[in-house]
């Protein structure tokens, strides 16, 4: 059974306008599933719909066979689904440590449990340990992105939804972020990844969907995409 199944979902922000027209996709456990497509294709909207910020007008979203499309974000989080939005999803007025604690407190209600989660997070992201007492505002773009990712990974989510992990980052930093995503998969986290960086998405994903106009235009395993990369990039840029 697929870990996540999006079953012919339609959704949108404004009455009468569907951003997602009819999306059907499956995410297999232990894999990275990539979603690519031109701007305005509905990629971010898809993640917001899965995470409960938006409820579908039609169709179902199934997690391990259970319907979750009516749940609020905090309830979806309790199922072990985490969401890293585009940009920096951190709390600038909190310290780095408090940002991580926030992630940990969602799952644990005891201080000892939270402390052990933090210890693991610092082991994975040593750079954050150095800056634990600093306000998150003082972090660089790359560090902030690491923190956004770290505070979602601290609870070992079953499924991680990642929107544009490399947007606005220097290539060297983006590389580190992708390494973390691949490392998370190695630890058994399933990922659903949206990316404008098609080359990179094709490189690390096991299975890909290309969506456009709120519908799946093309799908297949990595090899299927890797062969026609140039063609896909051109189509995607031109929105053909």
């Amino acid at each position, binding site marked *: 059974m697929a870990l996540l199944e999006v079953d012919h979902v339609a959704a949108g922000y404004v009455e009468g306008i569907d951003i997602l027209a009819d999306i059907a996709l499956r995410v297999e456990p232990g894999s990275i599933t990539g979603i690519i497509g031109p701007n305005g294709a509905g990629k971010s909207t898809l993640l917001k719909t899965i995470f409960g910020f938006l409820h579908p007008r039609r169709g179902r979203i199934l997690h391990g066979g259970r319907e979750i499309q009516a749940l609020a974000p*905090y309830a979806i989080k309790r199922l072990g689904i985490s969401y890293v939005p585009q940009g920096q999803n951190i709390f600038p007025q909190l310290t780095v440590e408090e940002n991580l604690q926030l992630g940990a407190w969602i799952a644990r209600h005891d201080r000892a449990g939270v402390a052990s989660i933090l210890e693991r997070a610092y082991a994975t992201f040593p750079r954050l340990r150095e800056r634990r007492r600093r306000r998150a505002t003082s972090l660089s773009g790359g560090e902030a992105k690491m923190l956004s990712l770290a505070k979602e990974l601290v609870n070992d989510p079953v499924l991680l939804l990642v929107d544009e992990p490399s947007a606005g980052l220097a290539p060297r930093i983006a590389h580190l972020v992708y390494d973390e995503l691949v490392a998370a998969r190695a630890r058994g986290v399933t990922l659903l990844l949206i990316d404008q960086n098609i080359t990179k998405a094709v490189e690390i994903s096991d299975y890909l969907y290309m969506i456009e106009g709120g519908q799946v235009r093309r799908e297949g395993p990595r090899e299927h995409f890797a062969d026609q990369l140039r063609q896909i990039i051109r189509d995607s840029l031109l929105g053909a």
Partner: protein
Amino acid sequence: MEAFARRVGWCLLAYAAVAWVPWVTTEYHTHVFTISLYYVVLAVGWNLLAGYTGQFSLAHHTFAGVGAYTSALLVQHTRLPMLVGIVAGAVLATGLGYVLGSLCLRMRAIYLALATWAFAESIRLLVTVEYQITRGDLGLRTSLLFGTPRATPYYYLFLGLALAAALAAWEIVHSRVGVFMRAIRDDEEAAAAMGVDTFKWKRVAFVVSAVFAAVAGGFQGHYIGLLSPAPMKFNEMATIVIMVIVGGLRTFFGPILGAVFVEVLSELLRGWGEIRMVLFALLVIAVARLYPGGLVGMLGLAVQTVRSRSPKSPVGRSTRSAMRSTKP
């Protein structure tokens, strides 16, 4: 646990440090300080909601009134002990806060302020109009907690209350709930994306601050001896807002310093009448423009300047302490 014991120790020390005030001042000055301490409880409670959670409610003074009237009426009609009356006031404030929070907290910013203001005015009018029960503007006599209108025993009571409120606020802000509250204040959408049930925790903050106000109001009613709808006017709420902003919104010591400073200043300027509110408004504008950190921010800056001038202390240490003073 050990850290908690240390903080309780600090509170006891603070209590002892200012316990001498009634011995060396007049009855009138003791009264002014007692009322200052009453406002400390209100300001600390409102700072939890508006400062740390970012929910700008304008009904905080109303919950103080609810606490005061509930306790006064209950004690008058049932002859129950006053402490029971005060607890009843807090329970009613919890219920009202829960209902009002449920209705209003899905609104954002200015809409929340307007809705809570409308609630505050409705309750004030209700208290004024239902004079068969509340005696309206005629004023409702209350029994005195210590059987005397003299300020000294009440000073010690409110000093204890203010320190307890400050300690409770500290514990809340640094707990799991506190991290959620501050995350909501920073970015509500992002907090929801983290899995924080934002509505639930905003409502918790709302109820907690309402209880702070109701307890303070209940005790204050049994000190003053006469209740009227006047302190439920918007002026009172404005005073609380001024205290917190002048002291330093979203700082721990801000509302404490601000409440004492503004109340004492307000007494010093008593001869000026209502012009005082204009002066305070100007003060708020000046603080917001020049020192957004309020009195606490200014003190932090002063400490930083002094430290960086003394050659012995390294610069790193002084900047760190300045950061700590405005945290979190």
